[in-house]
């Protein structure tokens, strides 16, 4: 039962991934991206990684994919025009090469003896949230300052004047 759901989700994941790339409508691409992230999250649940799954859904689906959809709406992006024959052929050829390479590696991986992957997550988490907690938090604070600074720097002069006039009641 679980294997069947896993295979189904994997197929959905692959399909939505392909549709994200090939779809001509930017909004539909964003939706497929969200569906892709959601299916990856559900796959993580099946792989007994619930926190990773929820983080995936929370950050990627409700964050990144949503942001891309909002950008599409705000910029009012038009549908992507059809490419010429040469670009279509070259894109198709590149895709075939990538798929071929992927298939080759998968074929060899499938035949090779599989050992459980070493647990790199726990030591990494212990380092980040233990020994290097302060530098990590300081970096986060630095990123926040950089974000606020970039917002201030990109404000136009007119906006600044309007804002100051509004505050002074003019």
């Amino acid at each position, binding site marked *: 039962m679980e294997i069947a759901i896993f295979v189904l989700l994997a197929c959905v994941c692959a399909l939505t991934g392909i549709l994200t790339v090939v779809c001509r409508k930017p*909004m539909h691409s964003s939706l497929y991206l969200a569906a892709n992230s959601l299916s990856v999250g559900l796959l993580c649940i099946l792989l007994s990684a619930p*926190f990773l799954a*929820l983080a995936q*859904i*929370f950050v990627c689906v*409700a*964050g990144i994919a*949503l942001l891309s*959809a909002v950008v599409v*709406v705000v910029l009012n992006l038009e549908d992507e025009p059809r490419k010429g024959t040469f670009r279509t052929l070259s894109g198709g050829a590149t895709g075939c090469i990538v798929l071929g390479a992927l298939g080759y590696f998968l074929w060899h991986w499938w035949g090779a003896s599989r050992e459980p992957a070493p647990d790199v997550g726990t030591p990494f988490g212990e380092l980040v949230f233990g020994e290097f907690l302060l530098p990590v938090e300081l970096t986060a604070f630095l990123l926040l300052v950089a974000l606020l600074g970039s917002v201030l720097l990109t404000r136009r002069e007119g906006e600044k004047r309007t804002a100051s006039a509004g505050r002074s009641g003019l």
Partner: protein
Amino acid sequence: MEYGEELFIGVGKAVVLPVAIMGIGVPLLALAERRIGARMQGRLGPRAAGPFGLFQPLADGLKLLSKGAPVFSGTDRLAYVLAPLVGVLSALAVFAAIPFAGTFTWMGHSIRGQIADPGVIYVLAAAGLGVYAPLLAGWGSGDRLALIGGLSGTVRQISFLLCMGLALLGVCLLHGSTQLGEIVLGQASTFGPLPGWNIWVQPLGFVLFLVGTMAWSGASPFDFDRADGELMGGYRRRYSGIFLAFLGASRYARQIAGAALVVTVYGGGETLPWRTGEAAMDGWTALVEGMAFAVKTGLVLCFFIWVRWSLPRLRYDQAMRLVWRVLIPLGLLNTVGTGLVAHLMN
């Protein structure tokens, strides 16, 4: 319990709960909103269809269903159709984590009154998926006013979800857990002469969560994104028939989910007042607890309706100022203060 029985009970809960919410909760809330509103304005309200107007929501639903599922020209069909479904599904997904009764024994089987307990991160993630509904509806409608309404709705939901998340952090710090089941069990105690609910321990968090929930669910006075005067209905203006019914149902389902969350996190959940500790229960006690949970949720919903008919609608900038300049800083303050107190007490 065997795997088959466990699966059967799990699937049963996953089917019964959404059907009960959409089939009973949403129509009752729609009727209560109109009846209480009429009472507050000195009107009679809907009372012709059935006793006390009980069949009015059914009549309204049938009217919308009879209009079919029209998709107007100039719309983006995928986004237009998907928006109401996403709204309903995200609201129902929140219910999966809410405990509506304790663990009880029924016909020899131990049943937990909760579909799953993945924790508050899941609740926020599921609630966050609902952000897509107004955005897709606004974009899919192919209309400028609908698009403005959709964007406003998206921004409203994201902003107030942050406020809800910050309020939840304080409770999680206090109970040392992110599981809603454990948070409810932690409230099965007393706080002086009062029940040991989080509403007394985290009053600021409660206010923040209540306001955040109201705004996230689109309850008035935070429904500026579908304002009739300014936006001609906002992202709903090009919807009709069954899609409009689903959009409306999604808003009511979100309100019920929000009220149930408030009760779970701050109102002791399904536990009866002054009940302490976890006790073994039979089916009848679980039923009483389930009813207590429904009554508490109903009271919170009545508060939503009371506010809806009392306060004027906030403007977009007023709501944004409220959330970003007042509620979120207060939420941060609440989190830091709770963390400090929890640290000192430990």
